[in-house]
């Protein structure tokens, strides 16, 4: 078949940034999958509540202190996260390194608080269906904090190697920061569901 050259791409960037990046879209798609999972866990919670004679089942509503503190910590963590995103966009290696170290430390805090959240529920997973769903919801969200923290720590180490100063890495840092936003924002409806719905 004959061909005519109709497009010269020599001048195009050799890597897509922002919405031109495949991994940005991939992250978005995985957020959609996991977001659906979070929504379903809330639906199961509300479904079980709708068939229960009283709610929470055979226990008091959860204590607010640990969960509320964690929510505040997560919300505050968005501030350094926004800066990391900005520095990654401007490809400022020194600041990105610093920001990632901060985010690695910030990621540990909610895990510590989470340890106190489980007992604050006043119920174990194997006592009744209420216990089962609150443990699964907390567990599901904890998994997300853990995986994102793991990713942040690996990225932090990576940024200190010779592979760090690369537009691709800065893109990864920005995507990772976006994912942290997702982990924080999905917590908010779960927090309302776990701590305030039983008080209605």
């Amino acid at each position, binding site marked *: *078949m*004959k*061909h*005519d*050259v*109709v*497009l*010269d*791409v*020599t*001048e*195009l*960037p*050799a*890597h*897509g*940034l922002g919405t*031109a*990046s*495949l991994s940005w*879209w*991939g992250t978005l*798609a*995985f957020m*959609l*999958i*996991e977001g*659906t*999972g979070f929504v*379903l*866990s809330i639906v*199961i919670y509300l*479904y*079980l509540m709708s*068939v*229960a004679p009283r709610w929470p*089942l055979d226990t008091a509503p959860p204590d607010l202190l640990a969960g509320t503190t964690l929510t505040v910590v997560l919300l505050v963590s968005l501030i350094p996260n926004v800066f990391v995103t900005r520095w990654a966009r401007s490809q400022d290696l020194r600041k990105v390194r610093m920001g990632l170290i901060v985010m690695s430390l910030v990621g540990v805090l909610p895990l510590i608080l989470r340890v106190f959240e489980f007992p604050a529920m006043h119920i174990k*997973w*194997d*006592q*009744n*269906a*209420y*216990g*089962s*769903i609150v*443990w*699964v919801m907390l567990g599901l969200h904890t998994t997300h904090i853990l995986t994102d923290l*793991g990713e942040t720590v*690996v990225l932090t180490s*990576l940024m200190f190697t010779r*592979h760090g100063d*690369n*537009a*691709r*890495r800065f893109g990864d840092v920005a995507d990772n920061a976006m994912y942290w936003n997702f982990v924080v924002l999905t917590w908010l409806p779960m927090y309302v569901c776990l701590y305030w719905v039983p008080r209605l």
Partner: protein
Amino acid sequence: MRAVADREGVRDTGMEAVELDRRLAATWSTPPGLWGALSTVDHKIIGRRYIVTAFVFLALGGVLALLMRLQLAQPEARFVGPDRYNQIFTMHGSNMMFLFAVPVMQAMAIYLVPLMVGTRNIAFPRLNAFSYWMYLAGGLLLWIAFAVDTGPDVGWFAYVPLSGPQYAAGKRADIWAQMITFTEVSALAIAVEIVVTVFKQRAPGMSLDRIPLFVWSMLVTSFLVILAMPAIMIASTSLILDRLVGTHFFNPAEGGDVLLWQHLFWFFGHPEVYIIFLPAVGMVSSIVATFTQRPVFGYLAMVMALIATGVLAFGLWVHHMFVAGLPRLGESFFTASSMAIAVPAGLQIFCWLATIWAGRPIFKTPFLFVIGFIVVFVIGGLTGVMVASVPFDTQVHDTYFVVAHFHYVLVGGAVFPLLGAVYYWFPKLTGRMMSETLGRWSFGLIFSGFNLTFFPMHILGLQGMPRRIYTYQPEMPWSGLNMFISLSGIVLAAGFLLFFIDAIRSARSGPVAPANPWGASTLEWATSSPPPSYNFARLPVIERLEPLSDRSDPLGIVEGLYTDRRELLITGVVEARAQARESSVGSSIWPLLAALATSAMLIWSIFTPWAVVWGSIPIAVALIGWFWPKGDPEDET
């Protein structure tokens, strides 16, 4: 040669064809040997592997069906006992849905979508490799368990309390639930790859209204997968938790609810039907356009129908639960929505009929399967409208009428188009043609065998024969029809056997296929059969919906890409304007290692919850190995 070399590498600008092919092959080819096979990320190799594996599972599932027909041919037969029979029908359903129907459709997309949108590899090629290994591991888990008499025996939808800790001792139900995890992980991975490939890797100029209908159908399907499959993953995980660590999701004594399982399962399970059906619709559109020698009538209507079906698919799940005692108002709503989905389905049927009417049809094997599809699927659709009505459904629920209905819909709606698609795209998959003579025989046997096998099941159902019984008494008026069905099943099986023989024989020694043997108009036919490792020596630029329809007007091409690293084009979502040159990762063994680590954790976790803790460590190691940069040219920017 007039290659333009700069600091970073060699571009294809002005390069002669032979030199360009040589350089691209050196960059893109999968190395030969076992290591190459285990580490490849070529979407064509993985797609072919996926398709072959799925057809092996189809054959195995077919053997199970024959075993069931052997048992049911006569009343009070002693060929299979009740326990083994429970395993066989559960395996048949689970295998066909989770290991054949969904994976084979996605597998066709893995192979075809990158070619049809004119790019060089699928998005996230290593995730694609990982997906295949996970799928294979899930399939092996299910079948090895069955071979050692631990196959699931709780039905393919594993209703609680039958599948719960109280009534399903042992590990059979866990095997089912964990097989779900394997196949859903692999399906979700492909869905993400397809969405991103279609959004961001289309050839420049392939705006939304120039996307081939098959690609549209896979895009909608992928969104269905993304939104529906988390429900079954949460459901199967909750089931495992109930069985392993004593949670009470489905235990009414402690505030759980058995209907919760049915809601979660069918919120996934009904869209699942469309996850299987919509790709088939795309295949039919491709075949109809080629064999009527004209574009499909009503492109916009077809795309809208695909999207409408995708949206409505999430509003139907309760029609599987009409006899579960739900509120009447809810039932009426779901009756209405179940009937409403017949509208976009009907719209598509009429568009195809209009295309055939206005075109010049050529009755080759792929087209015969499309005709078979229209006939069988319309019958299945009509019985679908019948069972959408609550009083009728109450009467035939759990009878052979339902068995007949869903085989008409699924085999008619998906397997007929799929077989047509295999005949149609076989030259692109293998470089060889399948036999037209054997194809016609195979179609004739499958079409007549299918109808003779499944149509009488409607009558058996109306006569009250329940599904999932391992035998029946001679006093029941069912034995004549059952014998007839079993004999017809042999005709159907012979048709499939012929198809397999033809496929294997043709792959080895069929006539060599040219690039575009059918005179089709979509992009996959613009490259050789089978395509080279880099798909297109020069990426095409698209100026119309059917880029190959006008022979006098050659395809425009792109210039300026590097040849010494795997490079493709990123384009905008709507207009597909070129945005960037982007690298595509090369072969890696890490996806296989990650899949092995994940499989070990998932299987281990059937036995102890601590597997999740300890098993995560090798997974984390494998993922770090996977993503850690190795200094390849693909990592440069």
